């Protein structure tokens, strides 16, 4: 019953019909306003003042009370006006890992001649960002939403609100922006050895970690030659690291689903693979990714790493535009 009513209200009154792309203009129909608790207390104070004025026959008491009543009415228009006609659009989001906060930034455009003050953006009333938007300017309000699951995170329903100027009213508008944030799987704790390049490529030992040119450091694992341990780094307290040397350009490191123990859970596998991608990228190595249903050919660099992480993030997640983790 309650859920049905809420849904009806959402659809009819608040006009929420899924995410909206492009610029959202806060037309009159989209801005809602209600008195705050302060506003109700203010009303009660005015009633007391009116009774006092009547009882003591204070003409100026009437003047003051009525002035404040009129101001209360006008404050409603002022609060509404502080939000009305703003133009809102989403900006690009930066990918995050599961467990971090996804940051959504809303661009607030004030096309009018009146300055807007203290406009708050919130998801859940816990975290609020306030911005001022001067006349004919843009302002950016950012909100962090915890990314609890991998995949694409939509911000869901955000609330843009204001209490300016008197705090007697709360005006708000609901936003469902057509934007999403890529949430990578949570990386497994560091320290997991990378699979050996040759074991995948079936070629001679130590190819990928040849001795020609120093390429970077990676965590030590017991099969590494002690001669390649970065002792200076160990002396600095960074733990045991193995020096890596890029030998041939065609070194192929495969990060393979099948390399992980067969009884391992899907999400754990994805975490491990994520860790491997990060480590391999940090070491400047080229690598390929092989997961059920998808194979990414070897490559290196930021783009390769992002592509692999994205693939891991979206593993077995249907492309549902309405998918909303935070709902």
């Amino acid at each position, binding site marked *: 019953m309650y859920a049905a009513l809420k849904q009806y209200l959402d659809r009819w009154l608040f006009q929420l019909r899924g995410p909206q792309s*492009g*610029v959202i203009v806060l037309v009159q129909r989209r801005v809602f306003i209600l008195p705050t608790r*302060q506003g109700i*207390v*203010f009303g009660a*104070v005015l009633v*007391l*003042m009116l*009774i*006092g*004025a*009547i*009882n*003591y*026959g*204070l*003409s*100026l*008491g*009437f*003047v*003051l*009370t*009525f*002035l*404040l*009543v*009129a*101001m209360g*009415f*006008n*404050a409603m*228009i*002022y609060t*509404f*006006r502080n939000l*009305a*006609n703003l133009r809102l659009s989403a900006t690009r989001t930066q990918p995050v890992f599961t467990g971090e906060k996804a940051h959504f930034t809303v661009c607030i455009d004030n*096309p*009018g*001649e*009146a300055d807007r*003050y*203290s406009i*708050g953006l919130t998801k859940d009333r816990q975290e*609020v960002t*306030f911005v*001022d938007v001067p*006349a*004919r300017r843009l302002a950016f309000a950012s909100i962090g939403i915890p990314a609890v699951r991998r995949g694409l995170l939509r911000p869901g329903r955000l609330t843009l609100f204001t*209490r*300016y*100027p*008197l*705090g007697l009213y709360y005006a708000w508008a609901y936003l469902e922006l057509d934007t999403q944030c890529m949430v990578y799987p949570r990386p497994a704790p560091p320290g997991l050895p990378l699979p050996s390049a040759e074991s995948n490529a079936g070629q001679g030992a130590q190819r990928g970690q040849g001795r020609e040119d120093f390429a970077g450091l990676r965590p030590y694992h017991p099969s590494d030659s002690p001669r390649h341990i970065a002792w200076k780094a160990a002396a600095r307290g960074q733990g045991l690291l193995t020096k890596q040397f890029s030998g041939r350009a065609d070194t192929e490191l495969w990060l393979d689903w099948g390399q992980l123990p067969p009884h391992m859970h899907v999400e754990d596998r994805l975490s491990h693979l994520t860790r491997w991608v990060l480590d391999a990228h940090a070491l400047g190595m080229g690598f390929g990714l092989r997961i059920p249903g998808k194979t990414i050919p070897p490559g290196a660099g930021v783009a390769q790493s992002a592509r692999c992480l994205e693939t891991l993030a979206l593993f077995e997640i249907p492309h549902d535009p309405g998918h909303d983790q935070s709902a």
Partner: protein
Amino acid sequence: MTQATISLRNTLWLTAALAMVAAPHAVRLPWWVTMLAVVLALWRVYVGRTRLDLPRKWLLLMVVVGATAGIYLKYRTIFGRDAGVALLIIMLALKVLETRTQRDAVLLIFLAYFLVITNFLYSQTVPTALYMLICVWVITAGMIGLNYMQPPRGYQNQLRTAGLLLAQSAPLMLVLFLFFPRVSGPLWGLPHDAYSGVTGLSDTMSPGSIAELTLSDAVAFRVEFKSAVPQPQDLYWRGPVMWDLHGSTWNIGRYHFGEPHYRALSEPLEYVVTLEPHNKPWLFALDLPGKVPPRTKVTSDLQLVANRPVTSRARYDMTSHLEARYGVDEHPLVLRRALQLPSASNPRTVAFARKLREKFADDGRLMREVLSMFRKENFFYTLSPPLLGNHPVDDFLFETRKGFCEHYASAFAVLMRAAGIPARIVTGYLGGELNPLGNYMIVRQSDAHAWTEVWVRDQGWVRVDPTAAVSPERVQSGIAAAVPRTDPLPLFVRGDYAWLRQVRLTWDSLANTWNQWVLGYNQERQHRLLSNVGIDDATWRSLAIILVGATCLILIVLSPLMLRKLRTTVSDPVKLAYLRFCGKLKRKGVPRDPAEGPTDYAARLSRIRPDLAPAVAAITRLYVTLRYGADPDPAGIRELQQQVRQFSA
């Protein structure tokens, strides 16, 4: 968020605003209350500046208990007007001291508004109103300050916004003021001191009491005459009538309500009196009052007594007969009361009166003899007479011979009674100052006067003013001309400086308008206003309809004013025409992308709607030339507008 801590900037602003509102109370409060409030406020400022911890609760509680006890000791109550205000001030100062959060601050704001209204309990003059308006402005700016998350530099912004908000509230305030249904009178019993501190005549008269009143230049009432203003010697404003003498004090006695019998000998004189509150029931009218205002009774000795003490400004229509015969067939018991004298007091006066009675059998001759004694012998009219002893009339008549009107009236009445002529004392006001600005008469407390009435066979009660015998100037020219220059009269009453007098009259005229239209706006005036616009016997319902209608009207008119400037206004005709063209295309389902230039848009349109291509190309070419070309040609603009108008997709 309301739990956020309040910034130093807001703390200082609020403390200053509260200090502004409370300042007028400072002179009325006990000195230690003022001191305590100042110390507490300064403590808060110090704590705010140095970021120390706010004081502990138990300390504040001790201050509360101590201050409440102090107020109780001072006023013998913690309720009532004065004690209530003192308590409110202390509580406010303590609240300032413990203000930490936004919520506390908002409460302070509301209390500050409330404190404004307490000032009106003491004064509702124009300067007070202006000062309090400034206070309300500052408080409102403080409230806006609380709602900034990033306060802008300086205070202009919040002051400007508050000013605008208040200015735009004025029309609705006016409508509410005029049409909000007014009820008269208090809703519940008021504290006994609600109206204390007002001056005026009392129900007793002793030597010096009227002279003391004369030192005040406060306005007693104002009068608008509907026809010619009477002569100065006719301006006897009748008030309480004194019958009984006890020692040196005359008393009003018990009221005897009843229809007095009089016969008018002159045309009725019509006028309107606006009486200042004096916390006593009497209304004042020229002798002889020929009409009884509503909710008022008349006594058999022609006092107008209102049902309730006059605690707010009263306005009433009056009619008087300057010449009338009254009380010819007075009841013998009443006449006997008018002959009573306290036994064994003023023996010399009584003996003197008996001697006169033996000498003059005729009442008229006797009276003339006494008056001529006042006139011819060395009697002085002065505001500062010497003190009198146990037999005050004896002392005055035979020793000091210096007195004010109450001395002469009292002595004359005692002489008459001793001589067997019924007499009584009438107190009231004599004269008044005509204000040519606004054309009304001001009667001040300094015009207070006392005279006598004696009962003469076949003539009834006759007014005899013994002061007129000793000082005719008092009647003709007012108090300032009558008393010695060394007497301590209020500066304004003297009227030595013409320009000062002018300033004073201008000011009083303003105050009178203020009183009539702002302070005196009550149920009666509201009804009169409504009947002027054609609504007779206005009910609550009709008032509610007017109120709601007018409020809606004002909001409809004002909202666009407040909501303007929200959109970018396009004033360039070229751009305007192009936007209209884009609007037409949007309605056809081919809107322009926000990032699409006119030329790209035209190219895309020619692909998806080849039928429109020629018109679109022409308009786009024209637009680009006009907008980015060197010098826009008026003919070109007209051409563009024409083409856009004709364009139909």
